[in-house]
């Protein structure tokens, strides 16, 4: 009988390793010396393409694209969106259809296998970082001269600081991010306005008001927790991640699903470790007060969304985290059977940081596969992307479709209305045809970003009020860029995983009262033992290096 001896095994392993090593190539990202020479890549491109121009390829073109299929409106190749787009731009999109459930995984595999479509939309920063060092995606910042609409929006809306957040250690960025005119805040808390009215309570404006409201509700319903929260399964926070996110912003720190290991401290002009900030402690103390007084359901941090929704639907709780969609699609629907029940998303309560808002004006974006650069239609493709995703006409088309067919009026004049037979997310509920399902417009792959007027056109009056209240707040500047090189990234990821687990665990213990806040200093030294200081040092060094190199 043949035996697979150890010697043979070693020989085989050695051979495989040698082959693997031979197959590796070193790649310096963004180091294409031929980046500027586009003479062979202009087939089908417009000679002069500027802001305000309708892009139309000079010959029929076909671009491959990763297409996320949303279960609410599964991809359909025959959508009017695609046929109209082809008529307008002479471009056909060949889609690799990927279910929303596992989109990122498929993007990772096809990019890793070197077989990606040319256009890879729906990428959330910093997901693109994983593909930079392999050279699988293009440094799009090298090709902005082909994108007049993108450049104009960045200049017009002063988005340079936001864009800098995308830059990698080489000073370039690899993601064509969606651009918003203003910071768009969607998440806040929803309250049962009918219950508030019954007890003579006003809508809370500040976090202290929220505390008083919860106290009054607790007094009225001693057996219930006035607030029972949700979004506890979404990383990276310890639970109740939306609540922690908006509350931390009010304290000038970051928590919940906004948690970042480092926060920019303007006073000391350097990054500090978020989980060890004094503001972070104050936030924990504040929430601990809620839990200790029975105002916040301790299960808020562990229960499923469905459980929290059930409590809210059954009037077992009266306050819950919310966004515009959930308000309409879940809370209002669930409470429809409760006589007199009304629910409203209040403006994000104000905290010690004042009437400010913080956030990026960037949306998810597009990666361009490196192989697309070799295409003879590369320039036309960049012009097409620029028109569809960044021009006013492109925004309007992707979002609302064709005037006279799917909508009437003008978003800038406030006269916008969906066509009588068309419905979308609670707008025009009597319409029989869904804008997304039937027509393919307002597809998350194409329709995002744009002017505030365009954004507000999608909201019911109540949400427009919310947005107006939020627009009135001062926008805080974003932290300066501190892109890490590959080695530092690896190191910080290693430390970050342990640190995040520990911060989450201890945050919960502080909030739930399982660890007294008097032990905060001990906790901070425990974080240091887990390399929080070294983490911050690396980020600060990266910031300084970037400043020196790219100013």
């Amino acid at each position: 009988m043949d035996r697979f001896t150890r010697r043979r095994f070693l020989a085989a392993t050695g051979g495989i390793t040698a082959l693997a090593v031979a197959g590796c190539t070193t790649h310096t990202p963004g180091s294409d010396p031929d980046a500027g020479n586009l003479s062979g890549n202009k087939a089908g491109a417009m000679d002069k393409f500027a802001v305000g121009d309708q892009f139309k390829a000079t010959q029929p073109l076909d671009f491959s694209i990763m297409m996320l299929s949303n279960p609410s409106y599964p991809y359909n190749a025959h959508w009017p969106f695609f046929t109209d787009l082809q008529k307008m731009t002479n471009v056909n999109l060949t889609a690799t259809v990927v279910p929303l459930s596992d989109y990122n995984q498929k993007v990772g595999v096809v990019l890793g296998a070197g077989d990606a479509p040319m256009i890879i939309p729906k990428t959330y920063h910093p997901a693109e970082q994983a593909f930079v060092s392999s050279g699988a995606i293009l440094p799009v910042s090298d090709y902005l001269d082909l994108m007049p609409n993108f450049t104009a929006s960045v200049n017009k809306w002063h988005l340079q600081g936001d864009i800098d957040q995308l830059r990698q250690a080489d000073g370039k960025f690899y993601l064509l991010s969606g651009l918003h005119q203003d910071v768009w805040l969607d998440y806040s808390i929803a309250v049962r306005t009918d219950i508030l009215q019954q007890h003579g309570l006003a809508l809370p404006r500040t976090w202290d008001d929220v505390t008083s409201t919860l106290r009054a509700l607790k007094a009225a319903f001693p057996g219930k927790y006035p607030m029972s929260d949700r979004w506890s399964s979404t990383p990276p926070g310890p639970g109740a991640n939306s609540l922690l996110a908006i509350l931390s912003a009010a304290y000038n720190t970051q928590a919940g699903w906004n948690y970042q290991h480092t926060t920019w401290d303007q006073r000391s002009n350097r990054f500090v470790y978020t989980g060890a900030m004094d503001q972070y402690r104050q936030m924990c103390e504040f929430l601990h007060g809620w839990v200790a007084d029975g105002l916040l359901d301790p299960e808020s941090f562990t229960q499923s969304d469905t459980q929290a929704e059930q409590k809210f639907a059954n009037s077992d709780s009266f306050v819950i985290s919310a966004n515009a969609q959930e308000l309409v699609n879940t809370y209002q629907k669930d409470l429809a059977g409760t006589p007199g029940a009304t629910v409203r998303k209040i403006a994000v309560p104000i905290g010690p940081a004042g009437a400010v808002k913080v956030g990026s004006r960037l949306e998810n974006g597009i990666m361009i596969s490196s192989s697309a650069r070799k295409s003879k239609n590369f320039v036309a493709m960049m012009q097409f992307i620029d028109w569809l995703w960044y021009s006013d006409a492109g925004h309007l088309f992707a979002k609302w479709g064709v005037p006279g067919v799917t909508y009437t009026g003008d978003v800038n004049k406030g006269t916008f209305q969906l066509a009588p037979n068309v419905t979308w997310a609670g707008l025009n509920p009597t319409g029989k045809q869904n804008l997304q399902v039937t027509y393919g417009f307002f597809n998350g792959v194409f329709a995002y970003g744009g002017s505030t007027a365009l954004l507000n056109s999608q909201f019911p009056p109540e949400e427009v009020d919310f947005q107006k209240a939020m627009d009135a707040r001062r926008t805080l500047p974003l932290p300066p860029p501190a892109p890490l090189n590959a080695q530092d990234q690896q190191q910080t990821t290693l430390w970050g995983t342990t640190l995040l687990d520990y911060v989450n665990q201890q945050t919960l213990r502080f909030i739930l009262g399982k660890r007294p806040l008097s032990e905060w200093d001990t906790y901070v030294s425990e974080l240091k033992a887990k390399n929080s200081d070294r983490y911050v040092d690396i980020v600060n060094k990266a910031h300084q290096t970037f400043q020196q190199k790219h100013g």
Partner: protein
Amino acid sequence: MVATESRPVHGTPAVRAKISAGRGNRTFRIVNGVVLTCVLVVTLYPFVNLLAQSFSSEQAIAGGHVNLIPHGFNVTTYRTVMSDPTFWVNYRNTVLYTVVATAIAMVLTTCYAYVLSKKHLRGRGFLIGVALFTMFFNGGLIPNYVLVNDLGLRNSLWAIVLPNAISVFNLLVMKAFFESMPSDLEEAAVIDGLTTYGILLRIVLPLSKAVLATMVLFYAVSFWNSWFSAFLYLDHNNLFPVTVYLRNLIAGATTGANEGASSDTALQVAANIQAVTIVLTVVPILTVYPFVQRYFVSGVLLGAVKG
């Protein structure tokens, strides 16, 4: 789902009477009955709950009122889901993939297992090693993808059925079963002039119905439930099996709420739509089980305890 079955103890009537008269045996039966009833309840509850949800109104589900009996009874959701052409296209794909994949898997596994069961085969150890190696090590996601792509299998039925054609676990069970067959039978067949293929087809397989039925069940269930290969190697939604459709519906609804995610991904798919789709997906494979189950225990056990 693994079927458990308690079979009566075999023996002469006198022995049976003696055993059943024992107090220990009675206690055992009671405990056994109680434990198995508990297992039954725990196993059945989610199914009944799901069934109740599928016939309930969305509000009743959101309010947590649905347990075992539907609240706000309606069949509107069934109508909605069943009127979605993509659902049926995907359903047809699942049936096709399951049938073809099971057929291929059965042919390959049977041939491989039969060969391996012959102790006099030269290189048998190596062939077993090759199979076992893949049980513990695999090429990894991206190399597999590259391989399937380079072979031109992507976006075809073969990408689903070929890479998973042989399950090593099933192979070993089958090999053990074949090994347990008396060699005299085959020797007699040789004397009667049968070739190797003749022996396999006319002697061995007819005597292996139990293990074959079990393997068909194992393969069919695993192919019916599988979604990953389809998700990885297929790029068009009219090629997807219904499991990908279902996964997108459920996972898409739960992973939606992401900070900064544009509100579109936060769209909820109603709980009753999920329930209906799950019920419709599970029912066919569930109905196959009772018919194959009688082979199930004897099939696996006969393979495992070889003399």
